[in-house]
């Protein structure tokens, strides 16, 4: 029995030494290859991870810049681009367009300076925003002109909103630094309804609907100005 054991262990030992001599060069090459691959994996993987992190940061900055590009710097309401973008995103257009213009704004600028004019613009924008609902949109289209889109169901609500806007601005006077007496500011509002087009998803028809509403609101605004300002007009 013990002789068999000795024989078996002898055979096993010889096999082990044979395997050792065969596998040693393979193990050497495998170790060197593993080293090379490990280093490359660490470096290139690290570079890719870094680029992903940088890309995410870059995207976040771009997104915030895109948001900022849609906001009017002075009044912190939407600008024309932002307004058009938001309108384009809307599924339903039915509602009312209100064009708001500050009365005699040129006189404020000429008499009290542009800084005072800027302050008045900020006050008016804040007051208008406070008067509107969360879902309404307000944008400064340039100069002293603001445009409001309100998704209102009927004419009465639109008239009521426009009256409320006019009153909210004229109700208080505005104190401007460097000017002794508080300034009285009024606005004129032109209102027009936006009728939902049957194919509202069509960009051309959408633009047509909006542009006709803008034209009507603009002509109503001029009517309000001609009728003595500080009022709203809606046909």
């Amino acid at each position, binding site marked *: 029995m013990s002789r068999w054991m000795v024989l078996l262990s002898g055979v096993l030992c010889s096999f082990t030494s044979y395997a050792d001599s065969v596998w040693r060069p393979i193990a050497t090459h495998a*170790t*060197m290859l593993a*080293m*090379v691959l*490990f*280093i490359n994996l660490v470096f290139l993987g690290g570079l*890719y991870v870094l*680029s992903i992190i940088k890309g995410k940061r870059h995207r976040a900055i771009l997104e915030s810049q895109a948001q900022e590009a849609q906001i009017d710097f002075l009044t912190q309401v939407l600008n024309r681009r932002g307004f058009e973008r938001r309108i384009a995103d809307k599924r339903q257009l039915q509602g009312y367009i209100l064009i708001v213009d500050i009365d005699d704004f040129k006189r404020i600028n000429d008499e009290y300076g542009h800084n005072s004019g800027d302050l008045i613009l900020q006050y008016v924008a804040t007051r208008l925003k406070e008067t509107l609902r969360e879902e309404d949109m307000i944008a400064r289209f340039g100069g002293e002109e603001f445009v409001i889109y309100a998704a209102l169901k009927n004419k009465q609500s639109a008239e009521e909103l426009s009256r409320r806007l006019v009153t909210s601005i004229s109700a208080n006077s505005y104190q401007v630094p460097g000017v002794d007496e508080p300034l009285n500011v009024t606005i004129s509002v032109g209102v027009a309804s936006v009728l939902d087009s049957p194919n509202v998803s069509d960009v051309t028809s959408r633009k047509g609907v909006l542009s006709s509403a803008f034209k009507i609101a603009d002509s109503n605004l001029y009517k309000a100005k001609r009728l003595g300002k500080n009022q709203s007009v809606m046909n």
Partner: protein
Amino acid sequence: MLNKLKLLSLSPYPQLYQLILWLWAGLSVFIIIAFVRFLSLADENNVTSIHFDELIQILTQLDVISMLALPDFWQISLSAEAGNTAMFLGGYSAISLLIFTTGLYTYHKNIEALSRRQVFMLLICAGWAHFLLAKCILLFSIPVKLTGPIAAVGALSVLYFSLLALIFDSYLCLRRKAL
């Protein structure tokens, strides 16, 4: 690829930064050439200032600092005729360099443009990373016959990567001057 590389540095001291990189790469090349030459001296039993066992210990552990401290190290000749140039050939280091440059080129072309100095620094760092990894492996008790190949991959990678960094930067430098 070359003309797309950003030539402007982000560092406030671009020339100092460049000088440090060049010194680093140059020193790396010098140390590895000297190391390989020293290895051939050791192979021929020509090192007299230290006992052979200690020498083997220094070489198998890639102990560059102890090696630099040996007086025999500073006696070696770095001329091309002085030693066996075959000792400077390493297949795995070359493969590593190939993989790394391909990866870097793909990254530069498709993901983000790398600056000249970033490429330089990445090459040197990757070279020394091979050396550090080899040193880490040699710290473990591995079979004696494995120490040579591992040390070779570590040392020759530093040489190849640093040389490529120097060649690449010199080429870009000359190219910019020509423009």
